[in-house]
C-alpha cells in the first residue's frame, strides 16, 4: 500500500514498540528508575466499577438559596421599616419566592415604595391591591438577581464540596459540574461510603440563635408561635432507655452569627470525660460580634443550631472575648472529625439532593477484573485455535495479528488515558472475536482468487485489494455506531465505546498492514507454488 516492504515494516514496528512502551507500567509494579523519570508511567486507568468506589450525582437545590436570601432580606427589611417609622403589618414570606406586606394607608405605601427603590434594588413589586383601605403588596426578587444567586450557589457548592473531599483525604477525586444544576462526584477506592455521603451532603449551616424566654414554649408548641420565632429541636439519647428523644426549644428567628464568621474548627477532647467536641475559632469580625452579642445577652441562653437542629443551648454567664466557642454533644470521634471538616470547609449555600449513586465495593471490582482476564484468555485461546485449524499457516498469521491487536489496544488505552470499565472489558473480549473478521474477509477472498487459477502471489494481492474497501466500509459503519455510544453514553458505557472504537481502528491496522507485511516477507523474491490457507 504505502512504499516498500522495508518502510512498512519499520512503521509497524515503531507503532508496536510505542504501544509496548505505554503498556509496561501496567504490566509491572516496579519500574526501573530511568523509566520513572523519562518514559510513560501511567497505568491503564480503571473505572469505579473495577477498582471500587463511589459515583454520585448531586442536585443543588438552588431555589432554596433564593428562598434563604429572601428570608434574610425580609428580616432586614423589617428592621429598616421600623427604623424609618413606616407603619406596616404582617411582613412575611408567603409562597416560596414571594414576600407579602400589608400597609395601613397610601401614605405609608408611598414611603414604603420609596425606601424599596432606594435600598432594595433586588426586590420588585409583583402585585398590589387595596382591600378595605389596606394596601396589600407582594414582592419578589428580580430574575437577574435570582439567576445570579443560582449560579453562585452552584459554584460555591462545587468549591465547598471540593474542600470537604480534599480534607477527608481521598486520592484522585473527580468533582465536576454537570448540566445546569448538578455536580458529578467520583471517589475511587472509598472505604466508608455512608460517611463520605453524609460529609458531602451535609449543608452544615451553623447558626447562633437566642432562646426566646419571654414567651411560653408550651403555647408555641400548641400552635401560636410568636411573630419572628421558630421552634427547633435538640436530639438526645436517653442514657436509661437508649432511645433518642427530641427536646423542643423556642428560638428567635434571627441568626445572631453564622458559620461564615468561623476561622477554624478543630476536634478537641474534653478533659473531664474524654469526650470529643468541636472547638470553634471566630475570625476577627466574628470574634467582635460574638463579644458584643454575649455582652448584651448575659444570663440569656444562646442556642447553637446546625442545619436546623439544636446542638446545645448554654446560658451566657458573662461577656465572652477572644472569639472561642465549642460545640458539644455525644459525638463519636469520626462524627466530631467530620463536623470539624464541614465547618472548616464552610456551609453549602443550598441543600443538595442525591440524584444518583453507584457504589462498588473493592472485592466486586477485583472479581470483575479476574473474570475479565479469564474470559479474555479462554476466548483468545479458542479463537486462535480455530483460526489455525481452519486456515493453517495463514491462520497463524491472523493470530499474530490478533495478539498484536490486543497489545495495541491496551497500549492505546494507556496512552490516551482512557478509562477501562467492566463493559469495556466485554468490549475487549468482543474485539477478540471481531478482530479476526478482517482477516477472514481477506483469506476467503484469496481462496476465491486461487480457485480462479491465479498464482499465490497474485491471489494474495487480489485478496487484499478487493477486501480492503469492504473492510473499510463495514468498519466505518461500526465506528458510526460506536461514536453515538460515546456521545450519549454515561459512565461505564462510555468506557465500552472507547474500547470498541480503539479496537476497530487497531484491528484494521493489524489485519491489513501487519498481516500483509508477513505475507509479503515470505513471498518476497520466492517462487512458491502454493500457500497454506
Amino acid at each position, binding site marked *: 500500500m504505502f512504499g516498500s516492504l522495508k518502510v512498512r515494516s519499520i512503521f509497524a514496528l515503531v507503532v508496536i514498540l510505542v504501544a509496548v512502551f505505554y503498556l509496561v507500567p501496567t504490566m509491572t509494579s516496579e519500574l526501573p528508575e530511568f523509566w520513572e523519570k523519562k518514559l510513560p508511567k501511567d497505568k491503564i486507568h480503571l473505572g469505579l466499577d473495577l477498582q471500587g468506589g463511589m459515583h454520585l450525582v448531586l442536585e443543588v437545590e438552588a431555589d432554596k438559596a433564593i428562598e434563604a436570601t429572601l428570608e434574610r432580606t425580609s428580616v432586614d427589611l423589617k428592621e429598616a421599616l421600623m427604623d424609618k417609622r413606616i407603619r406596616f403589618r404582617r411582613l412575611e414570606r408567603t409562597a416560596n419566592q414571594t414576600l407579602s406586606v400589608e400597609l395601613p394607608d397610601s401614605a405609608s405605601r408611598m414611603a414604603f415604595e420609596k425606601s424599596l427603590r432606594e435600598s432594595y434594588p433586588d426586590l420588585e413589586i409583583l402585585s398590589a391591591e387595596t382591600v378595605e383601605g389596606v394596601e396589600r403588596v407582594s414582592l419578589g426578587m428580580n430574575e437577574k438577581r435570582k439567576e445570579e444567586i443560582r449560579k453562585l450557589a452552584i459554584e460555591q457548592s462545587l468549591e465547598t464540596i471540593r474542600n470537604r473531599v480534599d480534607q477527608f483525604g481521598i486520592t484522585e477525586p473527580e468533582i465536576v459540574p454537570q448540566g445546569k444544576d448538578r455536580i458529578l462526584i467520583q471517589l475511587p477506592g472509598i472505604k466508608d461510603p455512608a460517611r463520605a455521603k453524609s460529609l458531602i451532603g451535609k449543608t452544615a449551616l451553623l447558626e447562633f440563635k437566642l432562646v426566646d424566654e419571654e414567651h411560653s414554649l408550651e403555647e408555641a408548641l400548641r400552635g401560636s408561635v410568636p411573630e419572628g420565632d421558630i421552634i427547633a429541636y435538640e436530639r438526645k439519647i436517653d442514657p436509661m432507655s437508649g432511645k433518642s428523644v427530641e427536646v423542643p426549644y423556642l428560638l428567635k428567628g434571627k441568626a445572631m452569627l453564622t458559620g461564615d464568621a468561623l476561622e477554624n474548627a478543630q476536634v478537641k477532647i474534653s478533659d473531664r470525660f474524654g469526650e470529643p467536641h468541636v472547638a470553634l475559632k471566630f475570625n476577627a469580625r466574628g470574634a467582635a460580634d460574638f463579644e458584643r452579642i454575649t455582652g448584651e445577652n448575659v444570663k440569656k441562653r444562646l442556642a447553637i443550631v446546625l442545619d436546623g437542629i439544636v446542638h446545645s443551648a448554654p446560658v451566657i454567664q458573662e461577656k465572652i472575648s477572644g472569639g472561642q466557642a465549642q460545640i458539644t454533644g455525644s459525638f463519636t470521634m469520626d462524627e466530631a472529625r467530620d463536623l470539624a471538616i464541614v465547618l472548616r470547609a464552610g456551609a453549602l449555600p443550598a441543600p443538595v439532593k442525591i440524584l444518583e449513586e453507584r457504589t462498588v465495593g473493592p472485592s466486586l471490582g477485583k472479581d470483575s477484573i479476574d*473474570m475479565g482476564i*479469564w474470559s479474555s484468555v479462554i476466548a483468545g485461546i479458542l479463537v486462535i485455535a480455530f483460526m489455525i485449524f481452519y486456515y493453517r499457516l495463514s491462520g497463524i498469521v491472523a493470530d499474530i495479528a490478533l495478539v498484536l491487536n490486543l497489545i495495541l489496544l491496551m497500549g492505546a488505552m494507556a496512552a490516551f488515558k482512557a478509562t477501562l470499565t467492566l*463493559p469495556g472489558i466485554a468490549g475487549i473480549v468482543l474485539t477478540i472475536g471481531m478482530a479476526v473478521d478482517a482477516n477472514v474477509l481477506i483469506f*476467503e477472498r484469496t481462496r476465491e482468487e486461487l480457485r480462479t487459477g491465479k498464482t499465490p502471489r497474485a491471489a494474495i494481492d487480489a485478496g487484499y485489494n478487493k477486501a480492503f474497501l469492504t473492510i473499510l466500509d463495514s468498519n466505518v459503519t461500526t465506528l458510526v455506531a460506536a461514536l*453515538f455510544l460515546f456521545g450519549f453514553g454515561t459512565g461505564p458505557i462510555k468506557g465500552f465505546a472507547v474500547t470498541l472504537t480503539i479496537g476497530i481502528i487497531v484491528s484494521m491496522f493489524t489485519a491489513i498492514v501487519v498481516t500483509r507485511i508477513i505475507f509479503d516477507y515470505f513471498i518476497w523474491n520466492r517462487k512458491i507454488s502454493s500457500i497454506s490457507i
Partner: protein
Amino acid sequence: MEIIKSETHFNFVAMMKMAAIASLVYILIGIGSIFWHGGLNFGIDFAGGTLIQIRFSGETSVEKLRQVFKSIGLENSIIQEFGPHEMVVRIPVTNVDLKGLSGQVENALQGAYGQGATEIRRLESVGPKVGRDLTRKALLAIIFSWIGILVYVGFRFEFRYALGGIIALIHDVLVTIGTLSLLNKEFDLNIVAAMLTIIGYSINDTIVIFDRIRENTRKNMKMPLMDVINLSVNQTLSRTILTSFTVLIVLVVLFFFGGSVIHDFAFTLLVGCLAGVYSTVFIASPIVLAFERIRPSRMKGKK
C-alpha cells in the same frame, strides 16, 4: 480446510417471503409479550430505584433477608439470589432520602447477621429525574446511530441499500427486545450498550454483502438483480458464517465466565448477533430487491 463448500447455490431470495413472515410473527409475539407483561421490565437505570448486592459469609435465606428489609420499612423490595452466598435486593423508588439509605441498610444487616458477616458489594441508586434523563439519552443514542448509518451507507452505496440496512437493524433491535421481554429479562443501561453493539456489528455484516452485490452488479450488467443477490450472498456465505462463529465463541465464553454483572449483557449480544446474521442474509438484501421492483435503479439504467 473448508466447512462451507466453495460453490453453494442456495436460493436465498426464494426463501425471503417465508423469512419475512417468520420475522414478523416473532416480532409480533415479542411486542405482544411486552403488552402481556405490562411494559418492559425496566431496571433501576430507567425506572429509578435502588439495587443492593449483598454477600453473606454464611448461609441465609431470601425469607430472612426480607424480614430485615421489612424492619426498616422496605417491605416492597424484590429479593433474588445472585450466585452463591449473594443476594440482590431491588428497592423501587421511595421517598426515603438517598443520603441515609445505605447506612440504614448496613445497620439493619449488622443487627440481623452480626458484625462483618455481610458485605455490601454494590449499591446503585437512581432518582426518577436521572432515570428519565438516561432513558432519553438511550433512545437518542439508538435513533441517531440509525440516522448516522443511514447517511453513511446512503453516501457510500445507494439510498435503497441504506434503507435495507436500516430495516435489518430495526429488525435486530425488535427481535432482541422481544426476546428479552419474552424471558422477562431486566432492561438497563448495559442492555442499551449491547443493543448499540448489535447495531454496529449487524451493519458490519450487511455491508460486506452489499459490497459484494455492488461489485457483482458492475461485473454482470445483464444479470437480474435477484440473481446477483443470490450469487453475492452465496459467495460471502462462508465469511458470514466464520465471523459469526468466532464472535459467538467469544460471546458464549463471556456468557459463562464473564461474571454475574456481565451475564445479561452477554446474553443480549448473543441474541442480537444471531438476529444480525439472520437479518443480513434474509432481510437486508431482499429489501433492496423489493425497492428495485418498485423503482429500478439509475445505475442499471445507464448501462
